[in-house]
């Protein structure tokens, strides 16, 4: 692995041990670095997809790299920042492509760690501008925010559309059940699917879950 490639090293370390190591105080990414990062993420996705039910969607490199950049810069600016708030929007660009099950799952490889950073930021300063940016971005990827109590709005229509994909639907509901995120069960479509997953054993697996909405 290229030791100069800061973003790749950071993400690799994060995936391997769940810890952040920041290598520089001037975050910058080059095209080459992102290409290397892309192939690393593709490998990680392939490993995880082995455990995905149904047919796993194709790896979406663009979304995966976008997610990695999100967490890389998020962590950087949690650690220290010199720039003015107005200058920092350039680091967090909008994800403009349409969101599909493939992009949700690919971005999730690194995006699943973002809620921890959001929590840290909330603990430091609830009014932080960075917090608002990150929250606005992760709102589009509800799959990565499950179980963290971030009080995000959920676009039910979009979710219904994503749930057309059996693989994504099963993974989404599995994660809700695993994290026991009771607040999400307010949404009818999630509630229905949890009831289907738990079946007759709902008392055994999740006592707090009630069949009535």
């Amino acid at each position, binding site marked *: 692995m290229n030791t100069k490639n800061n973003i790749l090293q950071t993400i690799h370390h994060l995936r391997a041990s769940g810890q952040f190591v920041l290598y520089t105080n001037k975050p910058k990414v080059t095209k080459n670095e992102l290409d290397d990062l892309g192939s690393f993420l593709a490998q990680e996705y392939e490993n995880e997809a*082995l*455990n*995905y*039910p*149904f047919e796993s969607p194709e790896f979406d490199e663009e979304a995966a790299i976008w997610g990695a950049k999100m967490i890389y810069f998020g962590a950087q600016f949690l650690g220290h920042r010199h720039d003015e708030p107005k200058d920092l929007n350039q680091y967090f660009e909008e994800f403009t492509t349409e969101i599909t099950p493939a992009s949700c799952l690919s971005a999730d490889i690194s995006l699943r760690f973002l809620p921890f950073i959001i929590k840290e930021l909330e603990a430091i300063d609830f009014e932080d501008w960075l917090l608002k940016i990150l929250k606005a971005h992760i709102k589009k990827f509800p799959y990565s925010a499950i179980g963290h109590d971030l009080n995000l709005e959920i676009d039910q229509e979009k979710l219904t559309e994503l749930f057309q994909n*059996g693989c994504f639907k*099963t993974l989404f*509901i*599995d994660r809700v*059940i*695993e994290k026991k995120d009771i607040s999400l069960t307010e949404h009818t479509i999630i509630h229905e699917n949890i009831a289907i*997953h*738990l*079946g007759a*054993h709902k008392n*055994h*697996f999740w006592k707090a879950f009630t069949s009535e909405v």
Partner: protein
Amino acid sequence: MERNLTQGVTEYWLRLPIAYKEKLAQIRVWKNLRMATDAQDIWVRGITPNQLVSAEIRSIPFKKIYVQQDNALFLLGGNLPEERLKTSLLWSPIDKALPVEIPNYNFNFFGVNETIDFKLVASNIEHEAKAVLVNLDVLEVYIQNAPAVRLKEIQWTFIQENAFLLGTPILPIPGKSYWQQLNFLIPAGYDFEYPELSNFYHKNLQVTNDEYIVLQSDHSYYKIAKEQFKPLSISSYRRSQ
């Protein structure tokens, strides 16, 4: 005006001279009966109409059957009260009042070389299934789109061409199911012919704590080491192919 004396009666009383105490042996297994003694007699109460007509009660000699009406005991079929209601007696469950006595040790017993067969018999008692033996093809169809929460608590291993799944709640797929007693996995619907001896079998087969003994309905068995079991997940299934 004449009334039907048996109206509303749910229990009958039985009176037996104390000399015939052993005659009660056959009904001491009925848990609903309570028993008391006074100077000359044994009193049993709590006998249901069904039990009254059974062979066990009818075969007891020298008995008198009473029904209770208000504060008096009427002989069954009689119109006049025979006794006052017994209020001062001390009632106890019949199996406590008539304890089993073990016969004296027989020093001249020659049957010590006799053995019993290790046998499984069909059983009526319901046990929760703990393990299932399923065909791999059947498992594959289910597991590809199974919710992770159902797989999480299941351990699995291979038995020839089949998958042996251990853990509850068992997966909703057809297969041979087993229930667990000690380290024995016994086919569902079967039990040892003498369940009391399971501890003895356990010791006699030299079962260690690191293995399961899977019994089969044809009385054969095989052992599975506990370390052979791996957590079941979609990836562990796909990797094993």
